[in-house]
């Protein structure tokens, strides 16, 4: 029973699996579990896209209620069961290394958070599958099952919050001497900013869920627990602008990868710090709860919502510009790579930033009053583009740090292919849904023509495009997953495959003297000038 006896007794394999508190191991758990739920969510997404093709009647699903359950499950799953856990997994494995810490802070709590999240995810999925989910427009779901889904969601939130606290404390308190917060690698920095906003928004989602749950339990709901009200209370968490806060670390991933790939310093490190913080601020989406609109002041028509969307677009543009500038100034160093090709993670990083820019652009279009896009499928387009950007960023991150995390190599080529498939898929979904939004297709189409807004043949064609995009995205995710599986059996990886600049690539972080944000590059240049 005692913990320390585990090593002494020669613990069995199972014991070691379930008792691990090692950051790297936990990071892999998060990545593995998150990628499985990602595949499940994307399958749900494909089914929903397929259903949308034939609005005459439910084909894939039995009823409009069931469609709604899967449609909402796709969004919840993509955000809270897939993308955020995958980012948390990357962070758990990489951030302690980046700040030079032996362990994640509160390792047992970090493990507890993972298991809580896992059990919560299982409960949530179970709730969805037994005809629960987050309610239905026609009150057609099982009330107990809805309660189970909400409870699972609360555990998911709790697990993510715990993991976030561990991560942030590691980044704040675990740094080696000389590594001020200003000098930490940008992935860690964006985790710090994004994590702060997760701590500021996930509890709000929890509050919404608790309110709905309490009102739902065991009797007729007064208001918040009504079947058709639950999704509306939670949906802010899965749409513009909150998705920016969830996707934010992709920026850090990109800005960590690109300069190293170009063997160059980042020109405006501090500007990136400020811009990413601002992206976090505009990504605080909890204020935009349309369910609680006071008559006369619907929040989505408020100045703040509009300003927010345009600010996000500007920030994304500025960040992309910064990345492009770095690319331009370092282009001369690109040809020196193997086979004269730019490394796959770098390509995917740039594409992820491009997707983020596209997402922010759609977000800005969406709030322009005359276009009347707020309730249309443009909302889904914005969400898919943002989460797609985060996913592609995570793909870049796993290709980049995977050697360090797993100690085994994977196929960079397959990784690049999978990434490209995902990028194309996400773009197809985003563009098609934006256009059909302009044509008036509702965000949730339901099972009838009337519910879909004013569809015409153009919308039908666009929905086919979106379906193909969904399939491509799923294929990309499968390729990524397969590549991850290959890592488990791959050849041993070199310790520092990219010639990294920051502490996670150091053989022994405690011996590195830190005087800037790129200590390893400093040491290299110092050695060069000395000889």
């Amino acid at each position, binding site marked *: 029973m*005692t*913990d*320390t006896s*585990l*090593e002494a007794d020669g*613990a069995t394999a199972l014991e070691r699996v*379930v*008792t*691990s*508190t*090692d950051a790297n191991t936990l990071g892999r758990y998060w990545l593995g579990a998150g990628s499985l739920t990602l595949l499940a969510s994307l399958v749900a997404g494909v089914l929903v896209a397929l259903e949308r093709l034939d609005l005459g009647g439910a084909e894939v699903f039995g009823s409009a209620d069931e469609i709604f359950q899967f449609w909402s499950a796709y969004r919840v799953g993509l955000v809270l069961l897939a993308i955020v856990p995958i980012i948390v997994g990357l962070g758990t494995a990489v951030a302690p290394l980046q700040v030079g*810490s*032996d*362990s994640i802070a509160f*390792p*047992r*709590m970090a493990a*507890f958070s*993972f*298991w*809580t999240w896992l*059990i*919560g995810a299982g*409960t949530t999925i179970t709730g969805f599958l037994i005809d629960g989910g987050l309610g239905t427009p026609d009150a057609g779901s099982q009330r*107990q099952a809805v*309660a189970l889904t909400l*409870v699972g969601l*609360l*555990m998911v939130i*709790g697990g993510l919050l715990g993991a976030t606290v561990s991560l942030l*404390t*590691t980044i*704040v*308190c*675990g*740094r080696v*001497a*000389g590594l*001020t*917060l*200003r000098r930490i690698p940008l992935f860690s920095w964006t985790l*710090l900013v994004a994590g*702060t906003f997760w701590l*500021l928004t996930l509890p709000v989602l929890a509050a919404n869920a608790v309110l709905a749950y309490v009102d739902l339990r065991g009797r007729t709901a007064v208001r918040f627990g009504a079947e058709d009200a639950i999704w509306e209370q939670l949906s802010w968490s899965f749409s513009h602008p909150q998705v920016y806060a969830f996707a934010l670390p992709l920026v850090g991933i990109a800005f960590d990868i690109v300069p190293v790939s170009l063997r160059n310093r980042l020109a405006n490190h501090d500007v990136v710090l400020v811009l990413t*913080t601002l992206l*976090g*601020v505009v990504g*605080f989406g909890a*204020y*935009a709860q349309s369910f*609680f*609109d*006071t008559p*006369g*002041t619907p*929040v989505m028509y*408020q*100045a*703040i919502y509009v*300003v927010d969307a345009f600010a996000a677009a500007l920030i994304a543009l500025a960040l992309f510009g910064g990345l492009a500038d770095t690319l331009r100034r370092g282009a001369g160093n690109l040809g020196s790579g193997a086979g004269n090709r730019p490394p796959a993670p770098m390509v995917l990083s740039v594409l992820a930033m491009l997707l983020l820019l596209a997402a922010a652009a759609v977000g800005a279009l969406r709030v322009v009053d005359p276009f009347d896009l707020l309730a249309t499928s443009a909302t889904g387009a914005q969400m898919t583009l943002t989460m797609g950007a985060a996913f592609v960023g995570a793909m870049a991150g796993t290709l980049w740090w995977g050697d360090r995390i797993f100690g085994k190599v994977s196929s960079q080529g397959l990784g690049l292919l999978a990434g490209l498939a995902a990028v194309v898929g996400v773009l197809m979904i985003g563009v098609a849904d934006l256009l059909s939004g302009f044509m008036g297709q509702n965000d949730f189409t339901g099972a009838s023509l009337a519910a879909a807004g004013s569809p015409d043949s153009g919308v039908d064609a666009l929905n086919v495009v979106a379906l193909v995009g969904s399939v491509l995205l799923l294929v990309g995710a499968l390729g990524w997953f397969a590549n991850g599986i290959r890592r488990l059996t791959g050849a041993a990886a070199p310790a520092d495959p990219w010639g990294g600049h920051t502490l996670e690539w150091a053989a022994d972080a405690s011996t590195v003297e830190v005087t800037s944000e790129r200590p390893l590059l400093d040491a290299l240049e110092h050695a060069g000038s000395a000889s």
Partner: protein
Amino acid sequence: MLTTGFKLWFGIFVAAFGAAVFAGYTSGGDETGPLTVAWKGAVGNHVSYGLLISVAAVAFGLALFSIAFRDGDAEAAAELLGTETAPPAQRPVGGSWWPIFAALGVGATAVGAVVHPAVFVIGICAVAAIAVEWTMTNWSEKLSGDRAHNAAQREKLLRPVEIPVLGTLGVGVLVLAMSRVLLASSVNGAVVVATVVGVVVLCGAIVISRNPNLPRGMVQGVLLIGFVAVIVAGIVTAATGEREFHQKGGGEHATDTQSEDGH
């Protein structure tokens, strides 16, 4: 000197407060409302305003912490301790059972809240018990630099509590489960079940005692499977319900019997 962390969270505070005031005014607030947290006057959209103010408050608190602890820099820690270099913030702690048990307890609590109050209570008790165990593990780790010594101290303190409690729980669960099985079986069936189970346990014990060299893992596995089997049987039969108990009352010589009409 303002630290980076302070700038980060204070910046978020300023942005959130500004956004709150902006939201308050632009959604139909009056002159004083947004600035006085609606103490005097009104704000328009309460949700936007309230949440942004909450963000501002929390960010302000974090900013204060950050400046007070100088971002938690290693240099600040070393200065506080009066040492050359700061010790690591967190040493690896090795494997631990408590996280997954605690998560299972939380899971039982959560699912129990929906499914059945008993499960909920069991979950709460489990979480509380694990909280104590976990705390004592942490306590023992800070006793000295000698892991074996720490573990020994922890065992010395907690074994006398753990063993009886776990033993009682284990026996209690088994007794409860077996009694459900016997109650659900028919009158003669119960006799058969009790005999068979008794013989199986006895023979198992004989086999184990005859072969002291059986792999420990195997014995553990068999016992675990048996334990789980009994519990599952208990749950299933508890769900099935008990057999019918009849009584024939009447005259002087009436006896109290159990019949099996219902089966």
